[in-house]
């Protein structure tokens, strides 16, 4: 089963390799990982997507917690959460396909952020499934490049994870 986990860590030298080393050393997989500092510049928040049965997930969260640099681990899969990913997509366009591309951008509430005679660069935010959707529709035009941020998540409701 897919799990999306937030890890609050000390924003310090080597912390990313501690996390990634833990996953590779123990044979856990990481599907995606995004990291950035939080409001508190001493902390970073990582969002990682992994897969495994309950037993593996229990080990993953326990092992993450065991790292000295880890402050908090939240597995969002058990509760209600909002998931968003950003993608930048460079797609080939010509006179024929431009209108179609714009229609697709419109339907997905995406944005064209760069234009050349031969291409559009599109920015889209949404749940990963939505990004997969637009990619599917754009594919016939010829996708030159895709950059995805990997999802970030936040819990629903008024309560926040501090940091």
């Amino acid at each position, binding site marked *: 089963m897919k799990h999306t986990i937030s890890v609050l860590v000390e924003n310090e030298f080597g912390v990313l390799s501690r996390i990634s080393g833990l996953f590779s050393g123990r044979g856990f997989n990481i599907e995606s990982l995004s990291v950035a500092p939080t409001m508190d510049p001493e902390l970073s928040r990582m969002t990682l997507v992994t897969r495994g049965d309950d037993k593996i997930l229990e080990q993953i969260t326990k092992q993450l917690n*065991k790292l*000295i640099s880890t402050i908090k681990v939240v597995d969002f899969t058990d509760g209600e959460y909002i998931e968003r990913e950003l993608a930048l997509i460079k797609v080939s366009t010509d006179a024929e396909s431009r209108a179609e591309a714009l229609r697709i951008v419109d339907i997905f509430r995406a944005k064209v952020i760069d234009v050349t005679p031969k291409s559009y660069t599109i920015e889209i935010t949404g749940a990963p499934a939505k990004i997969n959707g637009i990619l599917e529709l754009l594919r016939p035009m010829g996708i030159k490049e895709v950059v995805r941020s990997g999802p970030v998540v936040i819990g629903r409701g008024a309560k926040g994870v501090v940091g």
Partner: protein
Amino acid sequence: MELTGSQILLKSLTLEGVDTVFGYPGGAVINIYDDLYESSINHILTRHEQAAVHAADGYARCTGKVGVAIATSGPGATNTVTAIATAYMDSIPMVIITGQVPTPLIGNDAFQEADMCGITRPCTKHNYLVKDIRDLAKTIKEAFYIARTGRPGPVLIDLPKDIQVTTYKFSYPDKVSLRGYKPTYSGNIRQIEKAAKMILAARKPVLYVGGGITLSGADDVLLKLAELTQIPVTTTLMAMAAFPQRHPLALGMLGMHGTFFANMSVTECDLLIAVGSRFDDRVTGRIDSFAEKAKIIHVDIDPTSIGKNVEVDLPIVGDLKDVLGKLHGHLNKKPELVEDLIEETEEWRSMIGEWRERQPMTYRSSKSVIKPQYVIEKISEVTNEDAIITTEVGQHQMWAAQFYTFRHPKTFLTSGGLGTMGFGLPAALGAQVAYPDRQVIDISGDGSFQMNSQELATLVQYKLPVKIVILNNNYLGMVRQWQQMFFEKRYSQTVMELPIDFIKLAEAYGATGLQTKKVEDVEAIIKQALETPGPVLMNFIVSREENVLPMVPAGKAIHEMVLAS
């Protein structure tokens, strides 16, 4: 007061109560070594960095203090890795200080540069690269705190050469504040009450005790709990000395080379109380048939140990001293129920007694060749089980666990998790430094001994009277045993074809060497060695193809033992 980085280091070590360090100098730690002249710290110069860290490990295992070792950058530092991994697997509190190239050169493939934080990340509890002199004192404080608290373990501090000479105002912090590190010491009282209930309801309970018991200092409370409830105790390799092996409740070791009655007890029990043990594959054998009839209570300070290899019915996270103390207190208040328990489990103990009688821990004795087990029994007898025993890894290690009757905590220092050949001699060195007046004996094989035999020099230099026993079969015996049993006696690369003259070797270093192949000389040689001042090497030519039995073949359930006939 402005001090240099290396002075800050040594001063901080002193403030942490460190009086002895083990190490080996080099370019990247030369300033630290120069400042040692002005420090009260006693430095033991080993002949290899690996041995320095094993020695600090042995020192830590027998004292319970944090062991400290120093090595230079690059090869000096990488030489420590096996020893750090050894300590990590057995949860030994250590601080290892390695020199590093100056900060501006880091990443430049400088002379004697190695990324020690990268290399040791998976085998340390935590590690630090100190890039700013202002962080040094705080880092040392944290390193010692992390090493000795929670589930202990080695912490490495990588200290660049320029930081060692930079000066800064020294003040040692009183407190440690680590947002991400707060070990749970106090066991949840509800869980403990549940455990008490499960114990009182059990009819075939067994305590399965691991190295955590020694790390926690809970040996006494374990004994009290076992005696109160009359629950039999089986110990892992790491806990052989944590429970008096002569005690009627002692079942000896369990697992691959465990006793018949310990393995049968675990297989048949209805309640397994795992304390400070981690269900290692050498203990469990085939995992799905391990204690399959039992409910399992697992007490450990490290939550990751619980539920990792087996599912447990009742997890309790906490310090064993606290948890077992509370459990004992709780049961002690219910004398009638405990009385009932003892009565109801009478049959269980007599069943175990029958197993013990049917298949005791034994071997076929001989009058013509020295049996290695016999040598261990004699050491046990002659030392009155009072010695600190270290071992290397292999057959001799298992025989030491099986045939030495341990009775004092912290007297059996052995590499359990990593299984490091070459551990025993430097660990004995460290133990002898810690306790100059106690009898320290390294039990070794001819293979393992040669992995760190250079430390004979250190023993002689510092007049450390460690006694070394080589059970010499001219084989890498444990691998040979596997080849005999599972590879049709194809002894690939396990025959040590060149017989070593160990007496000459000992004498070359200025130690004493003794040797025999006669059974009737064994006891006299051990006595002579113990009476001889200084380090003594005893070379016993033993029966060559002796096997360690019982043995659970890899992948089998622990009741499927090959027994001593």
